[in-house]
């Protein structure tokens, strides 16, 4: 099982209770389920980036990947 680094941005830091953690998981969805925050995040239409590229929750992860969970963006 790949070891990946999860990064939580903005409002999602509050949901995850941390800005960064490491888990073993095959997909972003599995990683969030393991942390018990999958439903809470999915309800907030998350954007997922793996190594800073936008992906979906079911992409296959590799060890060392950085998986970012981002709420809808509000710049400008």
């Amino acid at each position, binding site marked *: 099982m790949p070891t990946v680094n999860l*990064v939580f*941005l*903005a*409002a999602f830091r*509050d949901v995850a209770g941390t800005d960064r953690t490491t888990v073993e998981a095959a997909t972003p969805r599995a990683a969030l389920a393991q942390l018990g925050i999958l439903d809470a995040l999915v309800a907030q239409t998350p*954007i997922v*980036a793996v190594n*800073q590229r936008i992906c979906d929750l079911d992409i296959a992860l590799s060890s060392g990947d950085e998986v*970012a969970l*981002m*709420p*809808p*963006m*509000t*710049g*400008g």
Partner: protein
Amino acid sequence: MVKVQRDPFDPGALQQALTGNEAVGAVVTFTGYVRQTDTLELEHYPGMTEAVMDDLRSQAITRFSLHGAVLVHRVGPLQTNDPIVWVGVSAPHRVDAFQGAMFLMDHLKSSVPLWKKEQGQWLRPSEHDKSSIEAWS
């Protein structure tokens, strides 16, 4: 040029970088300012934010035949009246310059990893901002 920074910026100085070429007939700039607020804070995702802005810049240059484009966005704590975002584009003709600047601003609102926290609350995107993006696709 694409930049994410904590420091203020000078719109006049930024515009200089877009001028002085005899093919440029039009420069359009947008400056966003913080309206009356108690506290505003902006977060980004270092690395990805800049990369997405850079990709957006390339898209705009190709799509609207721009000569140049500059995007600057501030992060960190901001006060009322502070400039927060600057977009400037140069083009041979005015319609392309206006379109290019609008395209960039619409995308900065909801397609670039940036998040606003106002008075302790993370903002949600407006329906208007979401539909502005769809109009370009």
